[in-house]
């Protein structure tokens, strides 16, 4: 007999789930417990090369208060129903809003969206999980606050809580988001409410200004994990600088990446360039200006010749370096001189500033993101090939030029074997470097979808064998990536899970933790 639910949690009968739904409706009201296919269809969309059925939720519930969440975890414990918590659910290419495992119930906190505090003197904010960057941006405008956000690519529609908890990054000097997190409120699986660090003191006003508190620093265990539900989140804001100078530097040869990274590293570590520097390959930016079918027909990876034709046609660099300077005019002038001298030594660099490029969309969206603006044009990369398939592969390395070519050669070999393109960028943090590959494929093509899965699997295997771990991954590959970090880390994570969530009701499978 067909079930009235589109999926059920593993090991939970329809009768038990009925009872849980009745309890959730008592707490949240009928309208906030979604069980019909029509209501849940938008929670099922994924971009990964696995069947959507693997990630179909049983229901979605919408909570707006801490007290409701405390009751929700009580009901989950009673009926052994697992929940997958999302704040705004914009983990695009990493699993979106769909749960890690079929039948998990989505706890959607997007309506829990109050901006609780913004302090313009101390430059911090305290928000609920559903607050979006757009809300904060509008709030700053409305109240004429000279504050900047640091946003990831989905900017307007994403939010600081979810992005930081998944250890996402932005492009301003505050771009390492977890580094700028300060204070959390967490509902634990047993219903207790924990305020981390200084938040433990009833009368403290330092919750959002001093991260460490006393004793073990706990905030970290609530990121990329499933040990609690974060219901309040504090983070630091950047004071708007008097002068902002974004720039782009183009290089035309693939091998130039070594020189680029060697030039950037000392400038980043010294703070001359204060934001993470993006070095985007032409194919990463190509969707803004062209379509893949303009350059390739038939199966297989794009040829180097076609890539060079693309960059000639659209006046792009093969490598496109983006960074910015922030400060007073004097500071920016001095640092600009240092930057141009450093990059100018070899004679290969072509400098572009706002004055040079006009309304070029490639420069425009990068310049917007490096000032925390609301601009989602980076997602034009989904139009490059088209077909709705996207998987982010994100290995970390030392910020050394030699690492770039080694990683690129390895990645291109694996991608070419599976008929996929190298659509990548390097992001130089401080001493580390993220190598971000968006594996684009067409989900309407079963053969390509299968190849994409095998390719990603091989990338994780081969890169980890060389010592390159992924800093973040999608929900289909969390166990595999967790394995690459060794059995002891997995065992410790499991021990913590058992202690904090003995019934395993909170997002089982997140980061491979059950």
């Amino acid at each position, binding site marked *: 007999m067909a079930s009235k639910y589109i999926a059920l949690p593993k090991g939970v009968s329809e009768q038990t789930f009925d009872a849980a739904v009745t309890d959730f409706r008592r707490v949240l009201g009928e309208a906030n417990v979604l069980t019909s296919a029509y209501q849940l269809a938008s929670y099922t969309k994924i971009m990964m090369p696995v069947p959507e059925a693997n990630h179909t939720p049983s229901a979605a519930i919408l909570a707006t208060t801490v007290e409701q969440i405390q009751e929700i975890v009580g009901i989950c414990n009673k009926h052994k129903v697992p929940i997958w918590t999302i704040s705004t659910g914009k983990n695009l290419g990493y699993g979106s809003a769909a749960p890690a495992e079929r039948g998990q119930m989505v706890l959607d906190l997007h309506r829990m969206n109050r901006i609780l505090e913004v302090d313009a003197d101390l430059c911090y904010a305290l928000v609920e999980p559903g607050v979006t960057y757009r809300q904060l941006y509008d709030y700053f405008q409305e109240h004429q606050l000279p504050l900047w956000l640091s946003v990831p690519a989905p900017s307007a529609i994403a939010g600081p809580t979810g992005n930081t908890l998944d250890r996402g990054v932005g492009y301003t000097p505050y771009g390492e988001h977890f580094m700028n997190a300060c204070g959390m409120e967490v509902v634990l699986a047993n219903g207790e409410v924990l305020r981390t660090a200084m938040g433990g003191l009833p009368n403290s006003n330092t919750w959002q200004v001093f991260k460490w508190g006393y004793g073990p620093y706990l905030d970290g265990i609530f990121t990329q994990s499933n040990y609690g539900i974060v219901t309040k989140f504090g983070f630091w804001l950047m004071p708007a600088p008097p002068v902002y100078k974004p720039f782009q530097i183009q290089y035309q040869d693939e091998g130039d990446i070594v020189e680029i990274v060697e030039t950037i590293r000392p400038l980043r570590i010294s703070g001359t360039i204060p934001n993470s520097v993006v070095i985007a390959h032409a194919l990463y930016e190509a969707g803004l200006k062209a379509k893949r079918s303009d350059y390739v*027909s038939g199966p297989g990876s794009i040829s180097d010749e076609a890539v060079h034709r693309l960059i000639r046609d659209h006046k792009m660099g093969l490598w496109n370096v983006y960074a910015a300077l922030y400060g007073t005019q004097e500071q920016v002038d001095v640092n600009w001189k240092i930057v141009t001298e450093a990059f100018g030594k070899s004679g290969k660099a072509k400098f572009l500033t706002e004055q040079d490029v006009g309304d070029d969309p490639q420069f425009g969206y990068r310049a917007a993101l490096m000032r925390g603006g609301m601009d989602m044009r980076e997602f034009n990369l*989904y139009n490059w090939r088209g077909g709705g398939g996207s998987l982010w592969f994100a290995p970390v390395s030392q910020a050394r030029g030699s690492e770039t070519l080694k990683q690129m050669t390895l990645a291109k070999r694996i991608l070419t074997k599976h008929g996929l393109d190298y659509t990548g960028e390097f992001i130089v943090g401080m001493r580390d470097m993220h190598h971000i590959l968006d594996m684009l494929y067409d989900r309407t093509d079963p053969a390509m979808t299968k190849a994409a899965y095998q390719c990603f699997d091989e990338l994780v295997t081969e890169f980890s064998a060389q010592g390159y771990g992924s800093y973040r991954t999608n929900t289909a590959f969390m166990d595999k990536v967790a394995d690459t970090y060794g059995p002891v880390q997995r065992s410790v994570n499991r021990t913590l899970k058992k202690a904090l969530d003995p019934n395993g009701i909170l997002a089982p499978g997140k980061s491979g933790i059950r």
Partner: protein
Amino acid sequence: MEIDRRSLMKGMLAGGALLAFGIPSWTFAGSPARRPNHCVLLLGGTSVDEMFENGARAACVGMTDEGLQTERLKSGLLASTDGMSTLLEQSCGARWIAVMDDASAVIFLELVRMANVRLLSMGTHAYSRDSACSFRHAWAATSPTHSVGGVLASQFIQRPGSFSITETFLQAPLEERALTSWSAPGFSSYRSGEADAMHIHCSGLSLSDGCELIGLTATDGWISIPQQRGVHDSVRWQSENWVESVGYAVTASALGMDSFRESCSDRAFVHRSRDRERIQPTERFVSFVMDL
């Protein structure tokens, strides 16, 4: 168009009553109405907008007196979502048919989830020569009630070119129905032996080749469905342009044109043409049908 008369009459009566009261059709019932009160076509600024609209307008003939209200996004959703949020707020009670490029579709889906819409179907459409089958259509629909594949297959089979159409249904209808299978001349039909059956309709190729084309590895356990007469969606309107055909099929389904529904969890139509295929420009887009 062969129709299930009883279903159509029920739909017409329900639609008429709702029109008289002028309230959103889904206010009363758990499931969205088959026929909407008011339908909006949202064109996302893609290269296929015009062709899709042509097909959509053709589907309106005889289906709605009101016609289609059309909204146009000039340049997708990536640079700004401000206008879309306002539009969503102002369109409460309408059925939307939307066309987007792949990038805007991702953002659009996120926006509509926040707006608590009821998503009836989402289709991904492609013509490209980098795949074993050039014309590919993959739908995720909430139930067979809102399926589009049968209408589109009936249109495509009349014209040269191979195609694959797959549909995944989040929920099969709960009510027990007399189960007819879609059936059309030239097609061989099969259902998988599992409880939540998949139906596959193959033309011009074997079952195993059909399975391979849509990415199924297991070809055992399929049960042949005998040919039945007249249980397919006959063609009322035909276009040489494939995007127009998709616009027609999506809109016809959104407006409540009845088609043969099969009680299954997944459905596929695969056709291999013997004719030499005319090369066309690569095109990809996404369609949505939803109730606001």
